[in-house]
């Protein structure tokens, strides 16, 4: 997709090819799955009063 100068899309960061690869890389995402679950568990434990 070509970016049109002075359009909305021209002023935002977009992911590089490597970032897009990491987002869909099953091995990397498996580790991220674990990390996300840990972060959410910590949040839940902090939130119960």
């Amino acid at each position, binding site marked *: *997709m070509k970016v049109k100068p002075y359009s*909305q*899309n021209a*002023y*935002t*960061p*977009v*992911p590089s090819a490597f970032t897009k690869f*990491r*987002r*869909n*890389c*099953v091995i990397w*995402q*498996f580790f*991220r*799955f674990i*990390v*996300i*679950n840990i*972060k*959410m*568990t*910590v*949040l*839940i434990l*902090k*939130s*119960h*009063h």
Partner: protein
Amino acid sequence: MARIVILGGGVSGHTAATFLAKWLGRDHEVVVVTPNAKWNWIPSNIWVGVGGMSKQEVIFDLAPVYKKAGIDYRQAKAISIHPEGGVDVEKQFVTIEYTGQGKEGNSEKLSYDYLINATGPKLNFGATEGLGPDAGYTVSVCTADHAVHANEKLDELIAQMKSGEEKKILIGTGHGMCTCQGAAFEYTFNVDHKLREEGVRDKATLTYISNEYELGDFGVGGMHIKLGGYVTSGKVFAESLYAERNVKWIKRAHVNRVEKGKVHYETLDGSQHEEEYDFSMLIPPFAGVGLKAYDKAGEDITSKVFNPGGFMFVDADYSKGTKPFEEWDAADWPSYLQNPTYKNMYAVGIAFAPPHLISKPMKSPNGTPINPTPPRTGMPSAMMGKAVAGSLRDMILNGAIEPTHTANMSEMGAACVASAGKGFFSGSAVAMTMYPVIPNYKKYEYGRDLNGTFGEIGLAGHWVKHFLHFAFLWKAKLKPFWTIIPE
């Protein structure tokens, strides 16, 4: 024996009812009044709306679950609350009108010792002319049936695109006072994902319209996260996704009228605009369900119990609602969800009246409010249900005088997983946590704890969302070990 009546069987009401039934056993009565025969895991409606799941996968029958739990289930809608009893009735009660169980249309007075109002929202499509699938021109994913209808319309559109036609798709919020931008966000990117899968993305112009001041506000004033050596606003990440998927966005918009093929809207600068569409999914604003309240003599005390929007007053500092944004404080938010006048009444989830917005209030020069209203759904809603259930258990079984558990949104976090497309290998979702939900600018430089606030998009997020779909339905059905699945 105490009787606890719970009005509403959604996320917060169902959580409160099931924990109370477990903790109190058969020595006390737990009654759920809900007009619905089915329970709906609403977050997965997004996938029903793009054909990724069937309606049957996101709903189940309530009656057998409540029978198993020993909960007295009344398929009825609540009409009024009588917190002082009535002229000839000593005990406090609610009036209900049956919508099922062979008693449709019958009214009944249901006495209670404790009342939990968990009635959820009225989907207020009527606030915007032409909005909604029933009396308007737009589709919705707010209920499972709405989502099925949305998918049918989307399939028709895709068929037309496959025959070479170009189409305009508009998704977002249908009023300046909407909440639940997350659902519109998710549907936008699930539609984008489906169009790519169907090979017709190049035939569609996809536009997102929102009442948010900036993308990524989500009704919680946005959030900052640490990433790549910067502390960065969520706006940057939100806009990045829209740019990456080639979705145009319109922000600070109040949709004031919908006609067939065209949406009319006002922006925060007061100017009026139009946007054409061939397919549009716009979220409605929420209102309270319209419960009335009466004192012992039968006088209407609705305004003493509910705010003008129909949400129940609880232990929040409502005096701050009239004060400027800069004077708002995390301490304004309620802890016990207890009604200040009638202490045996509680309100959880969307049913409680927030003290004020979370996002900064905005008005156009024409006086039109254009700002998201506070979200009170999902994880915080379930935590409120469990906290109130815990307080009532301690009062009933252990003799506690005051509530013992709190669920203050300024002291709790929220985890949110926003789908951006379904598929075990091709899917993605934004996984986010924020702590606390209500920004506290006195305590944290950016309003929130940056160690508890993060967000990332990827396949793992999709796995988490899909896992949560099964986990929460398992929990709601009270299957083995349901209590170890957190709210």
